[in-house]
């Protein structure tokens, strides 16, 4: 068996999600190759070559792959995939955008959000917003799947695989990149952060959301998340949203500040190692999943917490 892992990268660097996906591949077992498709992506390819357990890195490098548009990356993957038993991508917006398109052209099913590998053809994935866990078996010759990165540890580095340049195909001419607006932050990315400080509607305004949570996040080196209620109220940008319809996270420490704990929020963070909830409503459902709960007004508790951490 041989497994192709689609790397998550931004040309200049490799994203941590790739490491988790390699671990998932290792659970299946077999030769692991990593595809880096991009433009001027040698640095990302080099980083991929250093993942322990990776046998080979394939680099498809061309202008039309620069923004990794699904229309242009798909032919590259389809071409390669026929030589593999499994193709894995992280269940990021990039992986989710790409892999079903590949699957359709290969006329195989795709398995989304795999959280455990039972065997080479049997996988575990959540459905109904994580309220049900399904075990599914694929009979397709090539198994395509996206992997929920929070369910697998990051693979170690220290390897030294060869980087092989491969054909990058040509521009499909159907789509073009216009612009990108990334949320600027010196903080870690939500999906990769070890600690997340997340705020809810109780923050009551955009100003307070930032002025209360940012000092705490800075102190802890944490990423900032938000409940859907806080996002809908305009206190936090869309990509802060943690939950069923936002990001699924599983950091070492998740600090829920002024979040009541709607089911769909819990679905996005309940796999965190340690959950702390600060809420003045002692009946708030968040306390049912929190390892440590503090019933307090967040506007006094958070500054106190920062002071305590400074001690």
């Amino acid at each position, binding site marked *: 068996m041989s497994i192709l892992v689609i790397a998550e990268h931004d040309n200049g660097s490799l994203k941590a999600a790739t490491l988790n996906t390699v671990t998932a591949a290792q659970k299946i077992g077999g030769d692991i190759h990593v595809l880096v498709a991009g433009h001027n992506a040698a640095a990302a390819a080099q980083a991929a070559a250093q993942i322990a357990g990776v046998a080979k890195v394939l680099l498809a490098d061309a202008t039309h792959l620069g*923004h990794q548009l*699904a*229309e242009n990356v798909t032919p590259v993957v389809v071409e390669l995939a026929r030589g593999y038993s499994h193709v894995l991508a992280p269940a*990021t*917006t990039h992986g*989710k*955008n790409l892999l*079903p*398109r*590949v699957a*359709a*052209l290969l006329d*195989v*099913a*795709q398995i*989304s*959000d795999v959280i455990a590998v039972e065997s080479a053809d049997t996988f575990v994935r*959540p*459905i*109904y*917003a994580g*309220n*049900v*866990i*399904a*075990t*599914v*078996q*694929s009979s*397709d010759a090539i198994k395509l799947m996206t992997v929920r990165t929070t369910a697998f540890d990051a693979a170690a580095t220290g390897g030294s695989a060869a980087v092989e340049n491969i054909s990058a195909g040509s521009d*499909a001419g*159907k*789509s*073009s*990149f*216009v612009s*990108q*607006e*990334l949320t600027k932050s010196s903080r870690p*990315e939500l999906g990769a952060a070890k*600690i997340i400080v997340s705020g809810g509607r109780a923050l009551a305004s955009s100003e307070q959301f930032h002025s209360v949570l940012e000092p705490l996040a800075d102190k*802890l080196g944490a990423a900032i998340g938000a409940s859907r209620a806080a996002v809908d109220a305009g206190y936090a940008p869309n*990509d802060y949203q943690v939950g069923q*319809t936002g*990001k699924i996270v599983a950091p070492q420490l998740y600090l829920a500040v002024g979040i009541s704990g709607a089911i769909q929020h819990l679905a996005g963070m*309940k796999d965190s190692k340690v*959950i*702390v909830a600060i809420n003045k409503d002692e009946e708030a459902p968040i306390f*049912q*999943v*929190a*390892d*440590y*709960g*503090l*019933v*307090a007004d967040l506007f006094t508790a958070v500054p*106190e917490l920062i002071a*305590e*951490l400074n001690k």
Partner: protein
Amino acid sequence: MKILVAVKRVVDYNVKVRCKTDGSDVDVANVKMSMNPFDEIAVEEAVRLKEAGKASEIVVASLGVKQCEETLRTALAMGADRAIHVETDTELQPLAVAKLLKALADKEQPQLVILGKQAIDDDANQTGQMLAALMNAPQGTFASKVELAGDKVNVTREIDGGLETVSLSLPAIVTTDLRLNEPRYVKLPNIMAAKKKPLDKTTPAELGVDAAPRLKTLKVAEPPVRKAGIKVASVAELVAKLKNEAKVI
């Protein structure tokens, strides 16, 4: 310009589903069913494009059991012009759905196909991308903004870390994210009017599509419940616990 919208009938988002006692499947007997919320957003977007004079006709399609007709009627009441029901009792997986929609698209020749980014039952998030592949058309997935510009459509996508805007040649496929729009409440006269709008029926066999499932569900189970921890009395106690007991800071 014609728009094709696909809508799925799913367990209502308020319902907490349970597994059958033998673990063979989810028990969906007698639970409230509704249109997939992402698909509601898809219908709404199409209707807004029509109201803005940018689309001339909205065809809405649903695939599955007889009761999908109700879901189609809802879409018609929201403003779609006519409906197609591909009726089958077979479990439809994303690849089969994409093939069926491809067959409909071949007949209807829409310039834009709008779908929800995922259904809230199987959470697959695949159908739009697969349909785009089969139609050899570009895809704007997880859209939070859709702007038609001549023979192109600009789609702003919600991606990890922010937003990305792509320009797609028509015909194109768009899948909707949560914040694309807020679906309307249906006007009462439109419920009555929807009853009189055309609803055509077809089947996978008539469309020449093999809709058999590729993945076999071996079992389903409810996830382990996370237990509540303890309440701490003070911030100091919290910090002490995190340092000494949980060892996470």
